[in-house]
């Protein structure tokens, strides 16, 4: 089922949750809405599901206007961050709920419901837990029950609100890959909300980055990572750091580094650079600095460099561990820094 949302505005009292948000999700795609907490991503999802109503704007599902359609009739599957399971029911009854509440003439027979629930429990690998209560399941198992429950009514559209946010890293990775496979196997449209960039980049066909109730960028994961549309997106997706710079007459001056040609208006700008794009040389051209703390993070090495005349946080350079070990730096050593790749944005202290 395709989703289209046209100029949605929503405020809660003084707080503006969504400002003129429009988006389209074609049938069959798995799209992630990525943003910090309070950016309006959950509100957007709830409006699409019909759990909240927009102040202005319209929602279309499968090309048909659904703005006024009650939740019950939208037939979307919704998965909540904290599972929202019916705790007085067994796992089986939880999954069967959507089928059992149908009007008598639409309701499948008891045998058909049983078969359907068993099929779904097999799909989420929880056949053995059918008679247990949610209380006795782990977080990952609970979320799988919630997914099976949402899938029982055969929704064309699956909405997931930070579905793995309350789980351990390990379980989270496992589940999101499993969700991707499920999505490919069952051919529905999925829209999921997350504040975890790895989750969005790894699973989604397209990523929508939101900030302050607005959509900042929409694109394929690598597009959002490689060509961020704004300083916010650059800083939020992947790790990055800011260096102050100045553009004068088409030349960009970053600290004492040699000026480079740069198009744009003159004045103060922010240079945003990712740690792996920081080039550290023992001598020569560049911005001189002193090596600070060095930390091993799994297969990577993070090295802090205090840049000369720079008052901000030390710059972090990232190396592959094998390469670093072959040619290490010493704490206190003087080095020269150049940037392999960076982007400039108008200076915006808030980000």
């Amino acid at each position, binding site marked *: 089922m395709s989703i289209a949302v046209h100029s949605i505005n929503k405020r809660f009292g003084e707080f503006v949750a969504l400002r003129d948000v429009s988006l389209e999700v074609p049938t069959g795609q798995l799209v992630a809405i990525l943003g910090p907490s309070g950016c309006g991503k959950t509100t957007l999802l709830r409006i699409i599901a019909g759990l909240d109503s927009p102040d202005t704007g319209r929602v279309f599902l499968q090309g048909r206007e659904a703005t006024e359609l009650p*939740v*019950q009739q939208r037939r979307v599957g919704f998965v909540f961050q904290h599972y*929202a399971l019916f705790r*007085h029911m*067994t796992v089986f009854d939880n999954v069967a709920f959507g089928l059992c509440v149908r009007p008598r003439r639409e309701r499948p027979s008891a045998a058909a419901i049983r078969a359907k629930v068993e099929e779904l429990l097999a799909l989420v690998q929880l056949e053995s837990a059918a008679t*247990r*209560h949610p209380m006795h399941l782990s977080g990952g198992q609970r979320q799988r029950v919630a997914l099976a429950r949402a899938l029982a009514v055969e929704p064309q559209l699956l909405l997931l609100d930070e579905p793995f946010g309350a789980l351990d890293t390990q379980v989270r990775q496992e589940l999101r890959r499993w969700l991707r496979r499920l999505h490919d196997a069952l051919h529905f449209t999925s829209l999921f909300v997350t504040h975890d960039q790895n989750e969005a980049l790894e699973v989604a066909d397209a990523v929508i980055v939101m900030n302050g109730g607005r959509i900042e960028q929409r694109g394929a994961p690598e597009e959002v990572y490689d060509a961020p549309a704004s300083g916010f997106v650059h800083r939020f997706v992947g790790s990055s750091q800011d260096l102050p710079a100045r553009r004068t007459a088409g030349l960009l001056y970053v600290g004492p580094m040699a000026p480079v040609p740069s198009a744009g208006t003159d004045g103060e700008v922010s240079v945003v650079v990712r740690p792996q794009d920081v080039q550290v040389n023992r001598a020569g051209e560049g911005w001189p600095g002193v*090596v600070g703390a060095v930390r*091993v993070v799994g297969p990577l090495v993070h090295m802090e460099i205090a840049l000369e005349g720079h008052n901000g946080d030390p710059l972090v350079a990232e190396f592959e561990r094998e390469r670093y070990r072959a040619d290490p730096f010493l704490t206190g050593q003087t080095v020269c820094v150049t940037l392999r790749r960076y982007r400039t944005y108008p200076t915006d202290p808030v980000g």
Partner: protein
Amino acid sequence: MAFAEPRMPATPASTVAFAARRPRRVLPGFGLSLGYTILYLSLVVLIPLAAIFLKSGELGWERFGQVVGTPRVVAALELSFGAAALAALVNTFAGLLVAWVLARYDFPLRRLVDALVDLPFALPTAVAGIALTALYSPNGLLGSLLEPLGVKVAYTPLGIVVALVFIGLPFVVRTVQPVLEELDREVEHAAATLGASSGQIFVRIVLPAVWPALLTGFTLAFARAIGEYGSVIFIAGNMPMRSEIAPLLIVTKLEQYEYAAATGIAVVMLLISFFLLLGINALQAWSQRRLLGVAA
């Protein structure tokens, strides 16, 4: 150089012997607090109750049977328990409704209504009885409206139920309201996305969750109503065999210096109440376990 693989100190061979040790409680003072609880319960509840049994023992089995077996006593006991059960039942429904409105909706004067609920707790029961009697007597404000319809409230068993409903309402509201407020709304939203109507959500999701609290509220209202005296005697009319409640009969016996007979009736009331409450509590514990899925 700054780069170093993390080194772990060599683990020393464990030399600690694990002696069997009493598990330590997080909060100290279990012995003291339990002792105090038992002492307190004994002084306040058990010893006075035991005295009732002792006093009624003076009757002997035969006299005891004669006292509590008279049609007047049996009728009074039936009325007391019947009216109390009926009033508690009415309160269960009305109380759930009031609690729902207070927990779910925000409206002007909500705090005032919230405070009003507690009034029957604080009001002297005699005042409640007199007010209700004045309202429902044949020439009272409500009584005069009901009279043409052939409904008599004051000086009938119906009046007793009305008084008991009045004093029992807060028990249900105050036990159910916090549970309703604590309910996770997302669970109801989840049910709605699965296609459940508001009615289905209430019956299948909300009601099972508040059921144990509702049962507790019923029990409290019921227990309170069984022993209620002050408000009832004004509105009941107190006609033997028709609108005379058991507590009044006990007082009557006391006034006639028949102490043993009075405690005899009291013992019967006490035993019936005890077993009824025990039964309801068992039901409540069972439904609570079912709700949390512990029994499975």
